[in-house]
């Protein structure tokens, strides 16, 4: 699956949920499978400080493809991170830097990416893209 197809597949998964509860239960489940960063590696330069929840992000390039590792102290934030990682992992830096990231809005989670939300996610998406740009 390419970048857009991966995003469309998530949108399709989310379209099956009938209410907010099912949606959030799913996000919380996803939060449990995010690529965790070991405690001892959580240095300050990986930390993205939000007003509410904290996010740690690390990226690697392997064979010209981006791989991200992340964690958060809040499970809902972690769930959303997990979705971002599913979409971005294995993509080339140029795809991540240039192609549209549209699924968050389509699945009704754009509020989590608003600057007022202060959960560090908006900053994280920016940093994921910046890390990709550095590797083009």
């Amino acid at each position, binding site marked *: 699956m390419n970048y857009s197809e991966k995003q469309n597949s998530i949108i399709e998964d989310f379209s099956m949920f009938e209410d*907010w*509860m099912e949606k*959030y*239960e799913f996000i*919380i489940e996803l939060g449990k499978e995010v690529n965790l960063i070991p405690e001892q590696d959580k240095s300050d330069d990986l930390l993205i400080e939000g*007003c*509410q*929840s*904290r996010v740690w992000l690390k990226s690697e390039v392997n064979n010209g493809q981006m791989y991200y590792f992340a964690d958060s*102290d*809040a*499970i*809902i*934030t972690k769930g959303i991170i997990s979705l971002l990682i599913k979409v971005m992992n294995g993509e080339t830096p140029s795809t991540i830097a240039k192609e549209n990231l549209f699924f968050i809005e389509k699945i009704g989670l754009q509020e989590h990416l608003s600057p007022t939300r*202060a*959960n560090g996610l908006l900053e994280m998406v920016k940093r994921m893209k910046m890390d990709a740009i550095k590797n083009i």
Partner: protein
Amino acid sequence: MKDTTEYKASIENIRSQFPILSKKVNGRDLVYFDNAATSQKPYTVIKRIDNYYKNENANIHRGVHYLSQKATEDYESARNIIGTYLNAADTSEIIFTKGTTDGINLIASSFGSMLNEGDEILISAMEHHSNIVPWQLLETQRGIKLRIIPIHENGEIDMDAYNEMLNSKTKLVSVTHISNTLGSINPIGEIIDKAHAVGAKVLIDGAQSIQHDQIDLMALNCDFFVFSGHKVFGPTGIGVLYGKSEILNLMPPYQGGGDMIEKVSFEKTTFNVLPFKFEAGTPNIVGGIALGEAFNFLKSLNFNELHKHEMNLLKYAEEELNKLDNIRIIGTAKNKTSVISFNVGELHPFDIGTLLDKQGFAVRTGHHCTQPLMDFYKIPGTIRISFSVYNTKQEIDLFLIALKKAIDILS
């Protein structure tokens, strides 16, 4: 908790004056429990803003035309309403600011410029960042020493420690009347008297108390009192700094500009009298006028009844929360207002707040701009519910159901 018919009717009457309370959020009836962050606005305040722009808008204090005179009259009359309500010795002691933060910064900048190296300022460990950072800046600029009055685990100020910290070098004690995070009501009467005994001035941060308490400035005898309009049913962007005129008169101006001057020349500029000396530039005219209207609303309330109502809500909510597993209430001072901060086991406050929001409940989560206090309790943040005059026991019942649901989903 008793809900007499007569009493219910008065709360219903109050609720009907707040249009936003009939709004739906995420398809559900809004329950607004974030009153420590900001209060909702009654129709009278909303209409006053509308009316000002429709019929009165003009700049004040300088125009000879009808609109300017009318706007000036209304703005100054609002100052008078507020000064009278708060029992200030003189209306000129009521200075309009942008809010609590602005008021504290004004004092830190102006009163602070009269302090010298080695002078001490005391604040408590439960202060909002607004009552910490301006003093830290002053520490760097003027070499004053900022000292922190410790608190007990239950969220009460350690008065023994306070007494020991006061000395002849103490120039200012700046404490919150009510903690925005813990709800603790501090013994400010005693704090003020003890500070005065060593010759220190006292600034009271009234951001939280202005809505819950009937403030009598002359009886309190504090030197400065600051609050924000938006926390007391008024608009954002307007607030009040009260200061005793004999101190304000000694203080240099804060900002320079229009309105604050008497005469300007390139050789020498002289400054206007109080309160204008501290109100440079075109002020937030509509904000001031609407804040006056908010105080008219306050006057219409029966404070004794409402105080009882809020105490009932507090007691009921705390009792019910304590029945749930793993609830930890942060802030258990004996004298407390209707603010409850709590955590549920190891669950993150942000997760619970998000799931409550999905169910139409407005609560606050996070560190509430009191990070040192969070460090004291060794927690990243709390979930905070805070009540106002329009909240009901029924809303608390609905909240408890929603909270249980959030906990279930997260567990």
